[in-house]
């Protein structure tokens, strides 16, 4: 491919690519994101390739392995164009029929998504999961092959870069981003334009721009899917940002645990360099920009900006004090503008469509959309992109299809370990940066974990504190020791050793951590504890005062027993108990030996008669004498 030396070259190439493509030609796309790959998409893709070749349909049917579509619950996903028929949970055995159906232009009903009213939905955009989203950033993922720059260019890609370079001055680009009110998608929601401006005006050369792809919140994978599925958009945003700020060098920090993201972004960089979209004299504009990939070495805390910059400098990835912003003094003490993957991915859209368009989406102080990873006890899990201001209820019920197994909603955890839980009474809260903070939580990078009635809030708080205890760098006292003591106290409470004064102690440690920790990991670390304490204080009190776990989760505080009135002596629990704690026999009511029981819950799961009961905070009722026959046979 000869390099593109002007804006006209780029336009011409785009036309050329499109001219070669017939929009009406049948196209089968397979989601090749990490989640679908894990559930078998690779085998489906291989089967499709073989089937198409076997039938000699190479010229008639196009096969495309795309980035993550987001509907991970139902993967592997196959979508047939131009009709946009979405097949869910596709297996390699389904492939011959799919290829045959494409040829015959018919729909395979059994592979369609089944809606809430048991109706089968064929068009992807009609599926509720997709229908209520607004996929301006993420949508292209399902159209393009992440390893094909031509796919990206065909969709209009790098057009925003050309516009910035040839129609706008760096100042104008900066003004547009400021006007758009784009706020950082990585955590705190700091205005990106303000950060860019600080870096631009800061003294010191060279200046750096950095993509933060060190996503690590439990259950969150938005940045991963963007980086894996559409790396060119992130790259394009970064180049535009570098032009606005005056940076000639950039870094893309990707965690090592995301091998596909590392691979795809490296391919993207190489392609962009070959096409003259990156490197010296980009598109003949005279602007030079080089970018390198830095792979993270596995520490969650390296996602913190100063820690990340330490790591890029080759030092241990732990935070330093940043009373002087990194935009002024970052890598090697030079102005360094760091934004998260999703923030950069929004940039080309703002330049292409204008700040006014971007501002038309969202709420007064939070513009645009946000990608959330909707996980936990919700029917349709996956990545969802929604306009700011949508309610939590709409995300969980309309898009996510409600709570699994018809259980009752209890809380939703947003913002990862720095965020907090939000109870049912706030489900109608419009989701934006500021409203979530008001509730004691935060947007964070977009993790959204839905919890049902079977979730113990003390246990959840302990989980997040435990996560951070593992991930704290250990440099400052309040974070390192505060987490250690908090975890120990929470463990005591979960295991029935809680004391009356513990809640006060927790609050005191939390306050000290919040006010005095070195970095945001420490200052926000107590949020999961504080919000659960704020909204579910009675659960803590039940654990401490009554030695009772209301959700019946904490093993030390629960017991299983078999209701003699309901037991049919079927032997299911007896056979399945892994420790031999169930006694009884044919025609003899079963009993659980409490001393042997490990509270794994297997008996509870396998009992078909609802005879195994889970209790907490009350004595285990005595079992009937040996030899007692089941009620039905008495």
């Amino acid at each position, binding site marked *: 491919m000869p390099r593109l030396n002007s804006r006209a070259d780029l336009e011409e190439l785009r036309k050329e690519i499109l001219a070669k493509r017939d929009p009406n030609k049948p196209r089968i796309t397979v989601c090749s994101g990490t989640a679908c790959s894990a559930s078998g998409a690779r085998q489906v893709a291989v089967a499709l390739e073989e089937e198409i070749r076997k039938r000699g349909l190479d010229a008639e049917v196009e096969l495309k392995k795309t980035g993550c579509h987001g509907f991970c619950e139902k993967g592997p996903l196959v979508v047939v164009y131009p009709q946009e028929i979405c097949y869910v949970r596709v297996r390699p055995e389904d492939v011959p029929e799919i290829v045959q159906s494409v040829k015959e232009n018919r729909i395979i009903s059994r592979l369609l998504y089944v809606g809430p009213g048991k109706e089968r939905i064929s068009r992807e955009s009609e599926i509720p999961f997709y229908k209520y989203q607004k996929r301006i950033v993420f949508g292209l993922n399902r159209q393009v092959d992440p390893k094909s720059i031509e796919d990206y260019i065909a969709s209009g890609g790098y057009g925003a870069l050309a516009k910035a370079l040839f129609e706008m001055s760096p100042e104008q680009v900066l003004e547009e981003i400021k006007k758009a009110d784009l706020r950082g998608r990585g955590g705190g929601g700091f205005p990106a334009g303000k950060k860019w401006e600080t870096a631009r005006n800061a003294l010191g050369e060279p200046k750096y721009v950095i993509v933060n792809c060190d996503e690590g919140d439990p259950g969150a994978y938005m940045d991963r899917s963007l980086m894996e599925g559409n790396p060119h958009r992130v790259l394009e945003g970064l180049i535009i940002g570098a032009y606005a700020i005056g940076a000639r060098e950039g870094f893309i920090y990707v965690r090592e645990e995301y091998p596909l993201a590392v691979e795809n972004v490296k391919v993207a960089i190489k392609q962009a360099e070959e096409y003259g979209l990156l490197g010296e004299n980009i598109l003949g504009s005279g602007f030079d920009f080089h970018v390198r990939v830095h792979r993270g070495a596995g520490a969650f805390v390296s996602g913190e900006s100063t820690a990340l910059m330490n790591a890029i400098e080759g030092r241990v990835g732990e935070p330093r004090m940043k009373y002087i912003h990194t935009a002024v003094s970052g890598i090697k003490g030079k102005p360094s503008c760091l934004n998260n993957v999703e923030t950069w991915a929004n940039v080309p859209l703002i330049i292409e469509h204008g700040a006014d368009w971007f501002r038309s989406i969202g709420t007064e102080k939070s513009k645009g959309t946000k990608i959330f990873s909707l996980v936990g006890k919700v029917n349709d899990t996956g990545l969802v992109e929604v306009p700011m201001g949508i309610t939590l209820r709409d995300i969980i019920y309309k898009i996510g299809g409600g709570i699994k197994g018809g259980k009752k909603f209890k809380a939703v955890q947003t913002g990862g370990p720095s965020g907090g839980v939000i109870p049912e009474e706030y489900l109608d809260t419009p989701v934006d940066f500021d409203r979530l903070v008001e509730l004691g939580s935060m947007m964070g990078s977009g993790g959204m974990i839905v919890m049902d009635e079977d979730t113990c809030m003390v246990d959840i708080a302990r989980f997040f504190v435990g996560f951070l205890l593992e991930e704290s760098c*250990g440099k400052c006292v309040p974070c*390192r020791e505060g*987490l250690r003591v908090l975890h120990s106290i929470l463990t005591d409470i979960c295991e029935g050793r809680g004391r009356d004064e513990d809640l006060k102690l927790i609050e005191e440690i939390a306050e000290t951590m919040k006010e005095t920790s070195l970095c945001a990991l420490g200052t926000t670390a107590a949020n999961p504890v504080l919000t659960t304490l704020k909204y579910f204080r009675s659960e803590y009190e039940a654990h401490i005062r009554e030695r009772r776990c209301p959700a019946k989760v904490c093993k030390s505080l629960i017991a299983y027993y078999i209701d003699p009135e309901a037991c049919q002596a079927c032997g299911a629990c007896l056979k399945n108990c892994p420790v031999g704690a169930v006694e009884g026999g044919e025609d003899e009511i079963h009993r659980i030996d409490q001393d042997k029981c490990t509270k794994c819950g297997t008996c509870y799961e396998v009992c078909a008669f609802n005879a195994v009961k889970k209790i907490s905070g009350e004595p285990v009722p005595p079992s009937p004498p040996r030899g007692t026959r089941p009620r039905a046979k008495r």
Partner: protein
Amino acid sequence: MGKVKLEIDGKEVVAEEGMTVLEAARLVGAEIPTLCHDERLEPYGACRVCTVEIERGGKTRMVAACGFPVENGLKVRTRSPRLDRMRKTLIELAAVSAGEWEEGSKFWTLVREYGADPSRFASRVQIKPTKCIVCGLCVRTCSDVTGDGVIGFVGRGINRRVVIFPEKAQNCWTCRYCQEVCPTGKISPAGPLHSFPSIDDVLAGRV
């Protein structure tokens, strides 16, 4: 260098631009406690006991005086009931990993000054005393002042600890700087080689 005017505990202070609040406070004799700070080293911000209250633009927040640069119009409070309470909590938290310290040491003095109860949090966790609050003074002195790099950190979070690098042990010319800066008295007169485990032992799980 320009001059910066700020207010510390109600007193006006004229400081040099680029100074930290800690340095400026010393100009007016306001003593801010520190555990991980040493003038010869870059501010580190690990112990947080130098936390002070600052007011600017009508907003109050807490910052570490050792790293916060002075600026015009800044109002600083180095002592208040809330700060004292926070420092007491920080000292009690630092006491968790240390478990024990030498009488007369800097840490011992602070425990007494702030009326800290070292067992308040320590009693809630079960760990072997290390006599170390992981302030890093010894490590940083050894690498940044003497340039020897005989000791360093290993591990993350609560597993963070100071170790000896055996291949560098011959560089240890017993300058005793590390012993001098240690706020708890962990480093014995026999020197660091007798006070810390070797990294090999730690990685092999022998310690």
